[in-house]
C-alpha cells in the first residue's frame, strides 16, 4: 500500500462517521429551525421566544450555570492543589474524588432525591436534631429556594470531578523546577499558587471551563425529578416541544438557541483565558 495515501485511509472511517452523525444533523437542524413548510422564516424563533416559559427557562439555565460553575472551579482547584502535595493515599483519594465522573446526571439526581424528598435523610436529620416537628416537603412550589439549592448541590456534586481530572493532569505538566526556584527566593505557598500554578494552568483551565459550561447548558435530567415542572430549563423545554407538543420546528429552534449560547460562552472563555503567543511550557 502506498504510504502517501495510508493516513487518509486510516482517518476515513472517523471522518465519514462524524460527517454523517455530526455535521449532517447540524445542517438538518438549522434547516428545520428556519422553515415551517413554506420557505425561509423566523416563525419558529418568534414562537419559542414569545412563549411565557422561555424567559424563565433561559434565566434558570443561566442562573444555575452562574451559581454552579464558579463553585466547581474553586473546589476543583482546591482539590487539585491538595492532591498535588499528597504522598501516601494519593491514589485512594483521587479515586474517591473522581467517582462522580462515572455517575450519570439521572443517577446523581436520584441520589439527591433520597436526601431532599419528604421522607428523606435531610428531614430525618433535621427532625432528629429537633429543628422541625414533622417532615417538610422541600421539593414543592412553597420552597423554590430549596429546589434551586438541591439542583445546584446535585450539579456541584456530580460534575466537579471532570474539572478536577483536567486540572490534576494540567498541574502534573508544570515542571517542578519553577517551584524549586520559587522556594529558593522564599516565595510563600500562596504566592507560588498565584504566580506559577495559575498562569501555567491556563490551557487546562480553558479546557475545563469550556467543557463544564457547555455541560451546564445541557442540564436536563438533574432538573427533571428534583425540580420537575417547578424549574423549567432550556433543554427540558426542547424535549417538551418535541414530544409533548410535537412541534419539531420549535424544538429545532431551541436547539439552535442552546448552541448559540454555548458557542458564545466558549468564545468568551477562550478569549479571557487565551494563552499568549509563543508562551508554552
Amino acid at each position, binding site marked *: 500500500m502506498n504510504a502517501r495515501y495510508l493516513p487518509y485511509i486510516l482517518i476515513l472511517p472517523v471522518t465519514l462517521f462524524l460527517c454523517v452523525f455530526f455535521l449532517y444533523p447540524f445542517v438538518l437542524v438549522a434547516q428545520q429551525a428556519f422553515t415551517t413548510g413554506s420557505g425561509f422564516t423566523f416563525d419558529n424563533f418568534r414562537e419559542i421566544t414569545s412563549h411565557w416559559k422561555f424567559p424563565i427557562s433561559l434565566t434558570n439555565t443561566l442562573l444555575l450555570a452562574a451559581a454552579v460553575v464558579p463553585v466547581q472551579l474553586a473546589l476543583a482547584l482546591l482539590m487539585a492543589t491538595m492532591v498535588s502535595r499528597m504522598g501516601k493515599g494519593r491514589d485512594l483519594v483521587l479515586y474517591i474524588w473522581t467517582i462522580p465522573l462515572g455517575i450519570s446526571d439521572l443517577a446523581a439526581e436520584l441520589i439527591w432525591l433520597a436526601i431532599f424528598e419528604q421522607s428523606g435523610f435531610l428531614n430525618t436529620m433535621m427532625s432528629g436534631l429537633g429543628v422541625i416537628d414533622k417532615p417538610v416537603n422541600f421539593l414543592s412550589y412553597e420552597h423554590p429556594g430549596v429546589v434551586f439549592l438541591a439542583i445546584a448541590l446535585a450539579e456541584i456534586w456530580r460534575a466537579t470531578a471532570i474539572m478536577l481530572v483536567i486540572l490534576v493532569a*494540567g498541574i502534573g505538566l508544570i515542571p517542578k523546577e519553577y517551584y524549586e526556584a520559587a522556594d529558593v527566593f522564599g516565595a510563600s505557598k500562596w504566592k507560588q499558587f498565584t504566580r506559577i500554578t495559575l498562569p501555567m494552568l491556563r490551557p487546562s483551565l480553558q479546557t475545563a471551563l469550556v467543557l463544564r459550561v457547555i455541560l451546564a447548558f445541557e442540564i436536563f435530567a438533574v432538573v427533571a425529578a428534583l425540580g420537575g415542572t417547578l424549574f423549567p430549563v432550556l433543554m427540558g423545554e426542547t424535549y417538551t416541544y418535541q414530544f409533548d407538543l410535537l412541534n419539531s420546528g420549535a424544538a429545532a429552534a431551541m436547539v439552535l438557541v442552546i448552541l448559540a449560547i*454555548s458557542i458564545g460562552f466558549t468564545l468568551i472563555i477562550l478569549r479571557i483565558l487565551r494563552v499568549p503567543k509563543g508562551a508554552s511550557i
Partner: protein
Amino acid sequence: MTDTVLVDAANTRKWGRYLYISSVVLLCAWVLVPIYFLMVNTLSSPETVNSFPKTLVPEFDLGSLTFFAGFAGMLTALKNSVLVAGMTMVMSILIGAPAVYALSRFEFRGKSTFRLLILLTRAFPLPLLALPLAVMFIRTGLDDTAFGLALVHTTLAVPFAVLITFSLFSGIPIELEEAAWTLGCTRLTAFTMVVLPLIMPGITASAIFAFVISWNEVFAAAVLTIENRTLTAFLLQNLDTSPLHLKFAGGFILVVPALIFIFAVRKYLFAMWGIANR
C-alpha cells in the same frame, strides 16, 4: 525568644496539617455519603424506604431490588442499556483507533483540520443532535433500535476514545516500530506484534470510558427509543409514576458499574487530559 518563635512555627505547621487532613476527609465524605444514602435506601424494604424517619444503616432487605427486577420492562431496559453500551464500545474503538495511528505516526496535509474537527465535536452539546437524527432514523428504519442509538453514542464517545489512545500512542517511541521493520516486519505485523501489546491496556481503558458514556446518556436515549428503552430512558419516562423504592433501586443499578469502571480506568483518566490540553 527564638524558642517561642520555633514552638509557634511548629504549632502553626501542626494545625495546618490537621486542617489539611480534615479537609481531605471532609471532601471524601462529600462524595461518598450521598452514595451511601442511596445504598441504604436500595438495601431496605419498600416499606422502610417510604416511611419516616429513616435509619442510617441498611437493613439488608432485598425487597426493593426484587421489586425492581420484577417491574415490567425493567430487565429488558437493563439488557438494552448493556447492548447499546457494548456496541458503542466496539464501534468507537474500531473507528477511532486507525485515525489515532494516522495522527501519531504520519505527517499529512489536513492533519490540523482533522484534529480541529475532533476537538470541535467536544465543544458542542452533542445530545441535541439526537433530534434531527430521529427524523433521519425513521427514514432509514434505524429508529427505536439499539444499533441506531449506539451510533449516536459512538459520536459522543469517539472524540474521547481518540484523545485517550492518542496520548498513549505518542508515548510509544517510533524507534520500536522501526527496529521491527529492519527485522523483517511489515507495517502491519510491526503494529500487531510490537505496538498493540503495549497499548492494549490503554485501548481497554478508552473502551471502558466509551461504555460509561453510553451507559449514562439520558437525552439522546429518551429521544431515539420508544419501545426499546435503555435503563436511563426508562427511568426518566417513569419518573412521575414510579414509587420511591423503584427510583432508588434503579439509581443504584446505574451507579454500581460506574464505581467499578472508574476504578478500572483511574490510571488513564489523567494521561488523556494531559495531552488533550496542549
